């Protein structure tokens, strides 16, 4: 398996910068997800790695070799496309055969690989079918199969699940995860869906407007988002951000105050305008009375089965809370909430950067 | 009865024409259209139609079309109930089909009545006979035609060429009297670029001969039939009225044309009348036989380059050996649509008389426009003969001339033989007898459905009744 290194990678379309100065290491066998909203440059980055787009500046190394000027076929990669990119006039078997053609393998080897791949993907019984006779999920498996038969060093996925319905998406996601664990191939995976990123990635690369916002394991980006973009992009529902000012080791929001959490106490200067990041799951129902418990009114409730989302007002602040459904109050109820102080995040209100010391 | 009006009109016209002022013009308000050809028999007259309107009040519009396809337009016009053309240009071979269909107005009585005015006695009889069907005159000649040979007089008279010819063929270089000589001359004058011709080094190939070999509108038959006739051939069997164009004279004519191929331009299969005559007009061939209606261009430097670079000589058509002069005639004529109204017919006849009159013809000749004349007195005029050296040939050769084909199935003959002969000349068929017989069979299949009496009537050529008065 090959590692991928992107160094100062830039993609320019005429005057527009699509990708700014990307630096990224993908270890051999690692599953890295490029995550971001549409237009963030993630697909462009992937296509540059694939060789489908020219590199404007910077270098791409695949397996230690400078790949900038290598033809796609010489990069030892395979790619799975959003809309499968199957050859509509060929059967499943022929699709795989066509992918193997340039390798000039002997007949027996071709058959062995196709049989093996079909088995792994559960496509055995569909080998003689054409893509039009398959479901979306099956088609995507064929697309993966076509990539797999070539036993490439690197797998590139371009939003492979976007065209599938929600149920299938989960299933195929599992399958991709399973395949990666089983085959251990280096994988670069583009998606705008954080669930895919969280569930599949060894490492998530969060991108916005052509730049990397944060690189980290799923846990790192969830627990220690480097800035408010990452903080609100990762996690559903999004993190609540409450404006506040630090003073006297406290955080003063408009209508309530919190003690400054321990980990920020030493390096957040007095008078700094900050944003308090509170994940909805870190807001708990509480009895009235003790310190750091706040009165809240319930404006709305979304029942999700296990959990419920509450649309709260604490003073004039709007907060979304996620609580066990069984505990949910009535709409318009006056309740009390507390925050899980250990999980609070603080961001500089001006720069949006996390105030957590690294 | 019908002609009473016309007679009156004619009288009025002659008064008007003689210059006596008459209160109003006879044909005021009448509009005539002619379905015509874009060739000398029409182009000379077309610019003058305003004069006719001046004279008579009748407006005449002449639409000019190329020869190929013209008969199609005339046939469609003839089959229409309300015609848009009152005047029709008629090539004499069409007289059969148009006559048998009743498409043309019978001009016999008019011609007899106005014999003096139209100088009937001065017109070469065969040119009138050409326009008859079953003895009745259906069209009036606007241009006479004979088929004859044109040769490069300047080349024929060049001493080097004469000596070389004599040395090679053993007789003098003079206009051919038979086809063997014609072929010799064609061969003799065929030179490639770089060779010398009459003392000059040639810049491009020079072709000894140019004949029509194209199948388009049967062009090849227009050269083939005269040669066939010059061998004594006939179109039809006089007993059965069926095709006789596959006999010995036809075979010999085919042979002549086939042997001439190698001395013709490389595009010989595409040579139509005008393309073929173009070679003579541009001075690019030595001998070329064709209809005099195109010959008349050769004396006009504006129409024929050759008038500036050499001199053309004119002679009767060569013949098969020992066969007396059987020159082919034809006539290019004006006829009246039988479906025109009586008023229109009157005006049309007046127009024909005006446009084909001896005065008009003399005027053309004097103004320098060559026309293939058909009035004896014009052809015999010494001054004009001087100017138009071919007049003597036209005059001489019409004495014993034979009429062209005039059968109602002429279009079939022209097309079937056109394709068959063109195919043979192209080398696509080997056996000329088979080619001719197959063509004859095609014609006969169409004729055999008719009784023999009818077939014989169709080939009969009783003398024109205009002559019996």
């Amino acid at each position, binding site marked *: 398996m090959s590692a991928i290194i992107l160094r100062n990678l830039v993609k320019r379309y005429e005057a527009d910068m699509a990708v700014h100065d990307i630096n990224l290491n993908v270890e051999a066998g690692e599953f890295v997800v490029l995550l971001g909203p549409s237009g963030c440059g993630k697909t462009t980055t992937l296509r540059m790695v*694939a060789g*489908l787009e020219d590199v404007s500046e910077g270098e791409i190394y695949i397996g230690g070799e400078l790949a900038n000027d290598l*033809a*796609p*076929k*010489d*990069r030892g990669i*395979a*790619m799975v*496309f*959003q*809309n*499968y*990119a*199957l*050859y*509509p*006039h*060929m059967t499943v078997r022929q699709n795989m055969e*066509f*992918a193997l*053609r*340039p*390798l000039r393998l002997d007949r027996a080897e071709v058959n062995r690989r196709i049989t093996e791949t079909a088995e792994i993907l559960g496509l055995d019984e569909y080998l003689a079918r*054409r893509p*039009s006779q398959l479901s979306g999920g099956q088609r995507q498996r064929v*697309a993966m199969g*076509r990539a797999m038969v*070539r036993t490439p060093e690197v797998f590139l996925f371009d939003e492979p699940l976007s065209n599938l319905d929600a149920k299938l998406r989960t299933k195929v996601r599992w399958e991709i995860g399973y395949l990666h664990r089983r085959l251990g191939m280096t994988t670069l995976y583009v998606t705008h869906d954080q669930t895919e990123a969280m569930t599949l990635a060894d490492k998530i690369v969060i991108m916005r407007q052509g730049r990397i916002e944060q690189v980290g394991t799923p846990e790192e980006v969830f627990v220690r988002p480097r800035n408010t973009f990452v903080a609100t992009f990762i996690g559903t529902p999004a993190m609540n951000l409450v404006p506040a000012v630090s003073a006297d080791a406290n955080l003063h929001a408009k209508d309530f105050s919190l003690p400054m959490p321990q980990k920020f106490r030493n390096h957040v200067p007095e008078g700094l305008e900050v944003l308090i990041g509170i994940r909805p799951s870190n807001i708990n129902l509480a009895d009235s009375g003790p310190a750091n418990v706040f009165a809240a009114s319930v404006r709305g409730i979304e029942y999700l089965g296990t959990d419920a989302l509450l649309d709260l007002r604490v003073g004039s602040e709007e907060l979304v809370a996620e609580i066990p459904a069984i505990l949910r109050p009535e709409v318009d109820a006056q309740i009390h909430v507390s925050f899980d102080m250990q999980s609070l995040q603080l961001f500089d209100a001006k720069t949006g950067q996390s105030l957590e010391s690294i | 009865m019908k002609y009473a009006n016309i007679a009156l009109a004619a009288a009025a016209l002659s008064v008007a024409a003689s210059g006596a002022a008459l209160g109003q013009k006879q044909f005021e308000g009448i509009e005539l259209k002619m379905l015509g050809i874009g060739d000398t028999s029409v182009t000379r007259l077309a610019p003058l139609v305003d004069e006719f309107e001046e004279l008579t009040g009748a407006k005449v519009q002449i639409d000019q079309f190329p020869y*190929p396809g013209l008969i*199609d337009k005339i*046939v*469609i016009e003839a*089959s229409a109930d309300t015609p848009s053309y009152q005047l029709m240009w008629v090539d004499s071979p069409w007289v059969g*089909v148009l006559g*048998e*269909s009743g498409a043309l107005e019978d001009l016999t009585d008019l011609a007899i009545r106005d014999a003096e005015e139209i100088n009937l006695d001065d017109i070469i009889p065969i040119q009138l006979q050409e326009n008859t069907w079953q003895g009745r005159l259906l069209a009036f000649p606007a241009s006479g035609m004979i088929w004859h040979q044109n040769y490069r007089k300047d080349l024929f008279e060049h001493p080097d060429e004469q000596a070389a010819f004599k040395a090679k063929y053993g007789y003098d270089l003079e206009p051919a009297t038979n086809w063997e000589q014609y072929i010799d001359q064609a061969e003799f004058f065929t030179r490639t670029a770089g060779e010398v011709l009459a003392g000059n080094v040639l810049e491009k190939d020079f072709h000894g001969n140019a004949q029509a070999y*194209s*199948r*388009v*509108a049967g062009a090849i038959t227009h050269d083939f039939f005269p040669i066939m006739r010059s061998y004594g051939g006939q179109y039809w069997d006089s007993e059965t009225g069926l095709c006789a164009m596959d006999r010995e004279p036809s075979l010999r004519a085919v042979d002549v044309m086939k042997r001439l191929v190698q001395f013709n*331009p490389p*595009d*010989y*299969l*595409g040579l139509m009348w005008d*393309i073929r005559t173009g070679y003579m007009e541009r001075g690019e061939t030595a001998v070329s036989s064709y209809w005099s209606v195109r010959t008349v261009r050769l004396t006009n430097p504006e129409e024929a380059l050759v008038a500036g670079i050499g001199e053309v000589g004119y002679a009767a058509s060569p013949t098969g050996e020992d066969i007396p002069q059987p020159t082919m005639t034809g006539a290019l004529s004006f006829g009246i649509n039988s479906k025109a109204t009586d008023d229109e017919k009157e005006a049309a006849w007046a127009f024909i008389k005006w446009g084909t009159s001896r005065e008009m013809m003399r005027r053309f000749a004097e103004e320098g426009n060559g026309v293939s004349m058909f009035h004896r007195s014009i052809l015999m005029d010494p001054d004009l003969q001087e100017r138009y050296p071919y007049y003597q040939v036209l005059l001489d050769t019409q004495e014993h001339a034979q009429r062209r084909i005039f059968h*109602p*199935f002429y*279009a*079939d003959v022209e*097309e079937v033989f056109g*394709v068959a002969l*063109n*195919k*043979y000349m*192209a*080398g*696509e068929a080997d056996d000329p007898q088979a080619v001719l017989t197959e063509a004859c069979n095609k014609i006969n299949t169409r004729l055999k*459905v008719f009784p023999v009496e009818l077939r014989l009537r169709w080939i009969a050529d009783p003398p024109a009744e205009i002559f019996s008065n």
Partner: protein
Amino acid sequence: MAYGRTRNRKIFLIFLVPAIAVLFLTTIYPMIYAGYLSFRSYDLAKPFVPRVFVGWANYREILTSSEFMHTLIVTFKLMVITLSVQLVLGVGIGVLTAQRLPGMALVRTLLLIPMMISPVIVGLIWLFLYFPELGYLNYFLSLVSISAVPWITSTTWAIWAIAIADIWQWTPFVMMGTAAAIHSLSPEPYEAAMIDGNSRWQIFWHVTIPQIKPVLISLMFLRAIDAFKLYDIIFVLTKGGPGDATEVLSMFIYRQSFTFWRMGVGAAASFVSLAIVVVLITFFFKSLNRSQERI
């Protein structure tokens, strides 16, 4: 519901009637009349030839005539030549012009010009080029010391001369169809094939061609029908000659109808020609269905 439907049907009729009337007057009635004529002897030029019912005689004459068979052979020969060259050239140029390069739209438009010219004018243009002795083509050949080619006056060249003119006019049609079909294809399979390492030629042959095949079949079908009716260019250039080298079916029908004026035979020949076209259509739809089943 029922009310709406009857009303709709009435409106339907109001819109339909004029179209049907035009169709009847311009197509159906003439066709019926031609069918009637094809069983009759009818000489337009010679009213004195009996105009009578002749049964199948006209058809028998055509189908047993070597001349007609010859025109069929020439027609198919021309069809095979023009269609195959138009297919190869049209697809080739179509692929080139389908590239999204600057200025390609203009190139495509320019290439379409021959198609927009009336066939008679196309014939005349090529007549100037082919004209014996005086034609431009031979003039240009003479500049490079190639001796004159008897383009339209040789039995071997004439059919090619006509084919070239037709190819010149109609290759853009195939080109346009091909370019449009290629534009409608999604780009991903190409990228997948590129990544897999297939050569451009293999991609073209195994990915592009099979996907645009239904379009190509349609284009070829339309061209085949046109080739079957090819007339104008031949009429201007050779009129079927030299000899009978370029005598196609339409020329045969024309000659029977408007040279010999045997309208009955001409009508019968038209119907035979129609029958052949119908067979062609059937064959086409079958093969189209087959090729679409596979997608």
